């Protein structure tokens, strides 16, 4: 029983990261119909922001804040330099553009910083653990869960209570109508990218705190999982992205924990098969977007 609870904590911790990344993808997609495969590089840039801050002697907490800021700046720069000129293009053109941005950034990271992972040495207290009953639980996964809940709570507040948030939700419903009502499109799209970058930055903070290194491919694999989560939840659905993230994270952890040894090499295949099975039953995802974008 203790082991099951510990594994559920692990699942929430990993699922939370996927949920934040999936939400970042979904926010941008819902407004500009862009599946941003360069989202992982935003996360990676946030990680390098943390690394470089610590190299230059900033204390760990300040370095984390700089990492967050770096991710937001990268997301905004990406929107301004690569995606604004492509606005209105078809989904395939946008997708290819995002692949190109992703590849360019990866090469820049490799040649400008290092092809190999660079270490981030956080205070040892961040790698400590505490006891509840008979269970030993890590500080980092616990912090990860709290940060995820806090981030999602803040985002909900922004989307539901602030004017810019409501404009973003309206843009997700009908962007043309929003523009006709006089709302500045650039502002809404930039805000969506900024929030997307912030979520990627939070994911980068948790990721680097848990993994201890940054490399040019750091963001690629989690964003791949997050993309699966957005499809599972319902492409363009914000709630679906969060749910999808937690489902994928939970499936990954539980299959890792409880599959027999002989089946563990097939773990990813089993998780993806489960996702496909769900999509066969619910092709629009678990919580489809109102615009009904089919996966």
């Amino acid at each position, binding site marked *: 029983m*203790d*082991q099951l609870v*510990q*594994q559920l904590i*692990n699942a929430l*911790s*990993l699922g939370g*990261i996927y949920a934040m990344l999936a939400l970042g993808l979904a926010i941008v997609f819902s407004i500009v119909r862009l599946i941003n495969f360069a989202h992982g590089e935003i996360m990676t840039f946030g990680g390098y922001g943390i690394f470089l801050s610590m190299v230059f002697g900033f204390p760990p907490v300040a370095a984390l804040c700089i990492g967050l800021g770096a991710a937001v700046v990268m997301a905004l720069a990406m929107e301004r330099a690569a995606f604004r000129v492509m606005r209105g293009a078809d989904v395939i053109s946008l997708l290819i553009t995002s692949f190109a941005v992703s590849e360019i950034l*990866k*090469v820049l990271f*490799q040649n400008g910083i*290092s*092809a*190999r*992972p*660079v*270490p981030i*040495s*956080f205070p*040892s207290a*961040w*790698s*400590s*653990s505490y006891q509840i009953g008979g269970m*030993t*639980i*890590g*500080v*980092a*996964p616990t912090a990860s869960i709290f940060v995820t809940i806090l981030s999602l709570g803040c985002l909900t507040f922004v989307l539901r209570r602030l004017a810019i948030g409501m404009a973003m939700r309206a843009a997700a419903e009908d962007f043309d109508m929003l523009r006709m009502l006089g709302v500045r499109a650039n502002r809404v799209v930039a805000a969506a990218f900024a929030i997307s970058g912030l979520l990627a930055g939070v994911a980068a903070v948790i990721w680097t705190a*848990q*993994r*201890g*290194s940054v*490399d040019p*491919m*750091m963001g690629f*694999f*989690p964003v791949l*999982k997050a993309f699966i989560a957005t499809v599972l939840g319902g492409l363009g659905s914000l709630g679906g992205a969060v749910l999808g993230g937690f489902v994928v994270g939970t499936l*990954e*952890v*539980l299959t*890792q*924990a409880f599959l027999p*040894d002989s089946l*563990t*090499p097939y*773990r*990813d295949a089993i998780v993806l098969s489960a996702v496909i099975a769900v999509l066969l039953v619910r092709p629009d995802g678990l919580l489809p977007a109102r615009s009904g974008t089919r996966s």
Partner: protein
Amino acid sequence: MTLKSILLGTAIAALGTASSAEDYIIGVMSAQSGYLAPYDGPAYAGFKFCIDEKMANGGLNGTTPVKLIVKDTRSDIAVGVQVVQEMLDDGAKFIVSSADADPTIAAAQITAADMIPTMTFAGTAPVLTQVGPHVFGSYPADNQQGAVLAAYARDQGFEKAWLLTSPDSAYTLGGPRYFGEAFESLGGAVVGESTYSLNQPDFSAIVTNIQNADDAPDVIATWAWEPDFPAFIRALRGAGVETQVMGGDVLDTPTVRGLGDVVDGVVHTSGGFPDEGSAYADFIDRFKASTGTVPDNNYYVNGCDIVDMIEQALAAAGTTDPAAVSAAMAELEDGTATMSNFTFKGTDRMPLREVVVARIRADGEKEFVLRQLADPETLPKP
């Protein structure tokens, strides 16, 4: 006039790029990006440095000038196969392949027809030489490392081992398994094994399984590389598990040593250790003086050692004929190199070389533990 200019220009360009008839052409696969770049990059830097030193003295053995053809594989096996074919078409008589078994095996399929000697920069999976008699390792193989590390673990009194493996590569699967086999042959027991995928996002589930194992291990062995090892060790220590961790030579990097407290006491194998006054220490000084870069891992010096291996094979063969060089290389015994001496004779062309065991300290330094030659009679079989 224009036509003459073009023809003249083309002829001059051709003369400028063509190798002379005596050049010994060596093709080098070197990944400039992707997962192999951190290993191929330093290995090629060390290789090129020592080739340049030899060239300043008349070439290999003072008589054979070398021409290098270097091509980027982007860590992609398909691209690697393509560039090897191109290098053979350009006259390469020796291929130095990427620092992993899988691209080396793929390259060796192309070089087999002409018996072109093919040597990996630092691939250590002993299966890589089974493609044919023209394929060679250069670094102490995983079974040598596993055997030496297991013997050290038993000497320290460890009795129960847990293996962390990944079936995604011969290195990450084979290394811990060799350790386990040697560990059991010395009276220890392997009480569990967990598998992970390369670039796995999260290791917490594996750590929880180890934490709750009925038969708790007293040592964990893994050949996980970056970024998987940093993620694993942080998850392990973060969960309060202080079990001794031991690993392969891939842990001998500044990135792993830079992880701070979580790697304090981690023990790993290595190909060499730059003792004061040693040839290895001298190599570091020369390399630093020449390039301004401090070689911070063994891939640099092993790249240099490959030059020595080629040179001694050429001397023994007395010709540059590829098949003869392959045959001569396979018979080299107690050859001289910078990191350590090497013997191919009597092996399956993975050289028998000393294995170093080192321990990482929290301050980011490593300390020497022991240096030992594995016993060929008791090595775990590939």
